[in-house]
């Protein structure tokens, strides 16, 4: 599932390689993200080959000149576009030396134009402080696509430095365009619970739920549990808004399934108090029967009769068939009395075995 942000990110990368604006790529409307990526790689390879001889000469010159002069040539003569392309031919040692001598804002410019596949071996030669300084410029310029590309190719400690100053929006916007999706799980693992909460806040505030939910497919069990916990810390209105989105989008609902399946009975019991249960139906639909039934049992344990009554008005019969027989004889009349719908109470009672279906059990609820 590719999202609009992912697609926009790939179009921006391709546009940069071609030296045009993204809106000049309308001919590629309808192309899949993976095809856009393959095209970008092919173009980058082509451009490097076309000028390989000249780039090689420039790199050879850099080896002969004093470091300060080589850096000056890189910045003022080659510039960020050619410099970014020629960087593919540097040795890690030379790349590290140049990076130390060049201003961080210029390195950020170069980062926008390098072919990250080609310069990956060089990144190890660049010290963390230099990388972090260039990353700070990219963050300031909101170059999420560039940052998202680098995250896939630099060491964890450098990523941690880069992410250190990111707020929730920055994390989200760079996270959803991480080029190497296999890194998403590790990157998420670097974030504290508080920052994970900030990520979800940003998704809600900037209407980016589809983008963040699409990341689920790249997460392992541990990070899925952490994201689930973060969802469970969200406020009632945010839960309702997320449920409404899931209700409108089958693909999104499928992508959210790993989270929805992990929601706990305790959370559901808590949230029953804060949300309009009728409005979170799409969320409830994806929750395993046993979890929903356990949530009902939790409300019984808390003697939260009104909430249990509300829950029993929205649950599917399949869930109620497991929940209702497990409730105590005193629970149904109390919770049933809050439902205010005799027909629904009758449906609930019908789920009980005959010997438990007594007039007393119907109580005021069934009257």
């Amino acid at each position, binding site marked *: 599932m590719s999202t609009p942000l992912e697609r926009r990110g790939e179009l921006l990368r391709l546009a940069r*390689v*071609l*030296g*045009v604006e993204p809106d*000049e*790529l309308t*001919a*590629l409307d*309808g*192309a*899949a993200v*993976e*095809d856009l990526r*393959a*095209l970008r790689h*092919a*173009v980058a*390879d*082509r*451009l490097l080959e*076309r*000028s390989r001889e*000249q*780039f090689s*000469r*420039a790199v*050879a*010159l850099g080896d*002969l*000149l004093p470091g300060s*002069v080589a850096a*000056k*040539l890189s910045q*003022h*003569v*080659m*510039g960020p*576009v*050619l410099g970014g*392309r020629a960087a593919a031919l540097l040795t890690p040692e030379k790349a590290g030396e140049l990076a130390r001598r060049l201003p961080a804002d210029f390195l950020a410019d170069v980062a926008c134009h390098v072919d990250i596949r080609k310069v990956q071996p060089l990144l190890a030669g660049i010290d963390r402080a230099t990388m972090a300084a260039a990353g700070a410029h990219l963050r300031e310029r909101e170059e999420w696509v560039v940052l998202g590309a680098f995250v896939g190719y630099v060491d964890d400690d450098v990523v941690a430095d880069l992410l250190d100053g990111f707020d929730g929006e920055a994390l989200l916007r760079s996270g959803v365009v991480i080029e190497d999706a296999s890194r998403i799980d590790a990157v998420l693992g670097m974030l504290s619970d508080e920052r994970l909460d900030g990520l979800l806040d940003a998704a809600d505030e900037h209407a980016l739920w589809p983008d963040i939910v699409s990341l689920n497919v790249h997460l392992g069990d541990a990070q899925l549990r952490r994201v689930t916990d973060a969802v469970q810390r969200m406020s009632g209105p945010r839960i309702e808004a997320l449920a409404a989105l899931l209700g409108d989008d089958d693909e999104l609902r499928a992508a959210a399934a790993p989270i929805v399946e992990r929601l706990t009975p305790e959370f559901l019991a808590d949230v029953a108090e804060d949300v309009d249960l009728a409005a979170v139906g799409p969320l409830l639909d994806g929750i395993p029967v046993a979890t929903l039934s356990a949530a009902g049992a939790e409300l019984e344990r808390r003697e939260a009769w009104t909430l249990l009554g509300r829950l029993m008005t929205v649950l599917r019969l399949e869930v109620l068939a497991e929940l209702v027989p497990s409730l105590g004889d005193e629970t149904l009349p109390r919770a049933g009395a809050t439902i205010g719908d005799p027909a629904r109470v009758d449906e609930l009672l019908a789920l009980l075995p005959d010997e438990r279906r007594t007039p007393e059990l119907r109580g005021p609820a069934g009257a």
Partner: protein
Amino acid sequence: MTPPPASTPIELPEGIVALGPDACSAVEALVLAAERRQEAEVQAALEHGLRVVPRPLRGITRRVLVG
């Protein structure tokens, strides 16, 4: 990857070829323009480079850059 039309400077991914001949022509034009732009920029950089390098180093610079 699908073999490109004769004049296409790169092999277009199948998904791009599937967009049709107009899309392929547009991509080809963009790639050719990018190549021309890069060649002009490289040429300008090499010429400018000679002026930026300190005078005592210009001889070696010229030999390395121009051959």
